[in-house]
């Protein structure tokens, strides 16, 4: 149970900066996910929190206490590694008991042979055995306690790694892509199991993944990282609905958001590609920008319906039928070389090569400036003069 705070944490290896000025305040019992593309510094950050790697500057506090001077085990956090990192020559039981024996037995009570003479060890070990067994029961790995890690499947190793983290009731669980070595089906299963585990233990979880589905489905809050910075921190819903950056918008959501280039015209009017409708922004005229449209924001307009709203003329290139829904891939007629994906409930009698009109609500547009920062779409009605000037 712990609140974990990071204050302007930075890290450089030699002369490459890997993390710059990370601020995070993770509440007690929160499930926070660090997500981002490969090499953005997620593992480095979680290892700094664990104390396995010193930060170059900044401070880390657990429950309000600075822990920068503490060694990894003194921070009382547990880590689950992508590779599981089980001790290969020890049984599952020994693997899970190790953190406890390290805590409760002195050095000479752990030395082979010598330890046989310790009366205290004989008292403590049954206690440890009981605790390990109760955790093993929770994870349904009791029958495996006498096996070696090499004799386990990937999913079983994963559970053992979890169990080893759970036995010592840590302040926080740090998990570095714990599910990425599992096959797709098991990953989905372990995802819900981890979520349930978090709800039951009510411990702080800091979870690293590059899988946006894991980030969206498991977390209380998500911190999206890129190139050593946090681009956006918020609930999964916030990141989806109001991405603060084009990279966030593109990373979160599957299929990915449709991005189309636009130019900012006079007075901040933005002409939407292939459509008479316009939006207004405070971005400087003449600059390049882009708009993002989620696949579910687009819909097929029935032929003959009025076309004065925001529309895109498109030709159907490919249909991906997922059963419950289908993804329609369109080429845009007004923007050669660009396409959009539309999420639809059914194929609606469409055939490949057909030309259709796609409509969308102006409120669903995400506008990003040339650097990828989110820009506000202003209501056009607020600027009647410009509206008149721009519409012929």
């Amino acid at each position, binding site marked *: 149970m712990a609140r974990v705070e990071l204050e302007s944490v930075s890290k450089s290896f030699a002369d490459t900066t890997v993390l710059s000025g990370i601020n995070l305040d993770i509440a007690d019992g929160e499930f926070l996910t660090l997500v981002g593309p490969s090499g953005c510094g997620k593992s480095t950050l979680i*290892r700094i929190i664990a104390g396995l790697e010193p930060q170059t500057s900044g401070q880390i506090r657990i429950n309000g206490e600075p822990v920068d001077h503490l060694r990894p*085990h003194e921070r009382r*956090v547990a880590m689950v590694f992508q590779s599981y990192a089980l001790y290969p020559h020890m049984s599952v039981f020994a693997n899970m008991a190790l*953190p406890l024996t390290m805590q409760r037995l002195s050095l000479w009570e752990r030395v082979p042979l010598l330890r046989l003479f310790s009366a205290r060890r004989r008292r403590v070990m049954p206690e440890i055995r009981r605790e390990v067994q109760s955790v093993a029961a929770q994870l349904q790995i009791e029958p495996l306690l006498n096996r070696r890690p090499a004799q386990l499947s990937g999913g079983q190793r994963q559970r053992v790694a979890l169990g080893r983290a759970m036995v010592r009731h840590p302040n926080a669980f740090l998990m570095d892509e714990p599910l990425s070595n599992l096959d797709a089906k098991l990953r989905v299963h372990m995802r819900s199991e981890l979520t349930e585990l978090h709800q039951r233990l009510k411990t702080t979880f800091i979870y690293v993944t590059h899988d946006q589905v894991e980030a969206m489905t498991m977390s209380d809050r998500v911190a999206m990282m890129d190139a050593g910075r946090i681009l956006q921190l918020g609930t999964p819903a916030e990141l989806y609905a109001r991405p603060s950056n084009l990279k966030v918008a593109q990373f979160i959501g599957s299929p990915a958001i449709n991005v189309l280039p636009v130019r900012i015209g006079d007075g901040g009017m933005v002409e939407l590609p292939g459509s008479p409708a316009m939006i207004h922004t405070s971005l400087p005229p003449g600059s390049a920008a882009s708009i993002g449209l989620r696949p579910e924001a687009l819909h097929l307009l029935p032929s003959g319906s009025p076309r004065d709203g925001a529309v895109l003329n498109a030709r159907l290139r490919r249909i991906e039928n997922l059963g419950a829904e289908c993804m329609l891939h369109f080429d845009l007629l007004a923007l050669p070389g660009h396409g959009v994906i539309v999420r639809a409930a059914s194929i609606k009698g469409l055939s490949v090569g057909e030309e259709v009109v796609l409509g969308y609500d102006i409120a669903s547009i995400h506008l990003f400036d040339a650097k990828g920062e989110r820009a506000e779409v202003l209501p056009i009605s607020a600027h009647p003069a410009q509206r008149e000037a721009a519409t012929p």
Partner: protein
Amino acid sequence: MPCLQRAITRVLIHGVLMAGAAFMLLPFVWMLATSIKPPEEVFSATLRLLPTRFFGAENYSFALTQAPLLRFAINGVIVCLGILVVQLLVAIPCAYALAKLRFPGRNLLFVLVLLALAIPVQVPALPLYIALAEMELLNTYLSLMLPFLFSAFAVFLLRQFFKSYPDDIIQAARLDGMGEMEIVWRIVAPSAWPAIAAFSVFSVVAHWNDLYWPLIVITDGGMATPPLGMMLFADAETGSNYGALMAAATMLTAPLVVIFLFARRWFIAGVTMTGVK
């Protein structure tokens, strides 16, 4: 057709390898054969592998009764084990530090280890001898072991092995509360068994068979290791009784062969895994 071709290449390869093996085994086989020959057949002009008259019992009993073979063997065991144990106690933590810990001067230290590999024992032999003589340690086990206690080769070999040990496991151990020494001995070293076994075979064979250093520091026959003992034995009692000499040699090499047979699997695994040939 490619099938036949492959069969032919295999036959060729195995033929060459077997010829090489036979060539290397020949002296050994000759030693075994001579050890059961009577003296007159050892020098007979006709070349024959097996004796016409079996003389093994006489040769072996002569060697056993006339030379303190057991004494030599015990000396050899004490010296080889002493050297090996200290070498491992020193080299395992050193190799771990060079492979897995980051500290200033690490690369320089590793270069020094590589340099040490290139220096044969003959180079520091004289100063070592003088130092041992000054300390009045000649004719002791310590003098036999001292130059070999710190093995650059062991550090090098084990470092290569430890380098490939997963960092995640070491970090998990740190999070579980282990100190570096405990990580070395309880986590990393147990998985390095093949490399340790391979090195042990190298080390024991080298020091069991070493004649150069014992010749320098040992003058007392009671402290002699097997090869030196053999030499003293050849000089003193047997003269030209080559049958008995070979019988003694057979008995003194036998322990090595037995060790190697037991450690063979690990030895091969260790040698191939660390890329040392």
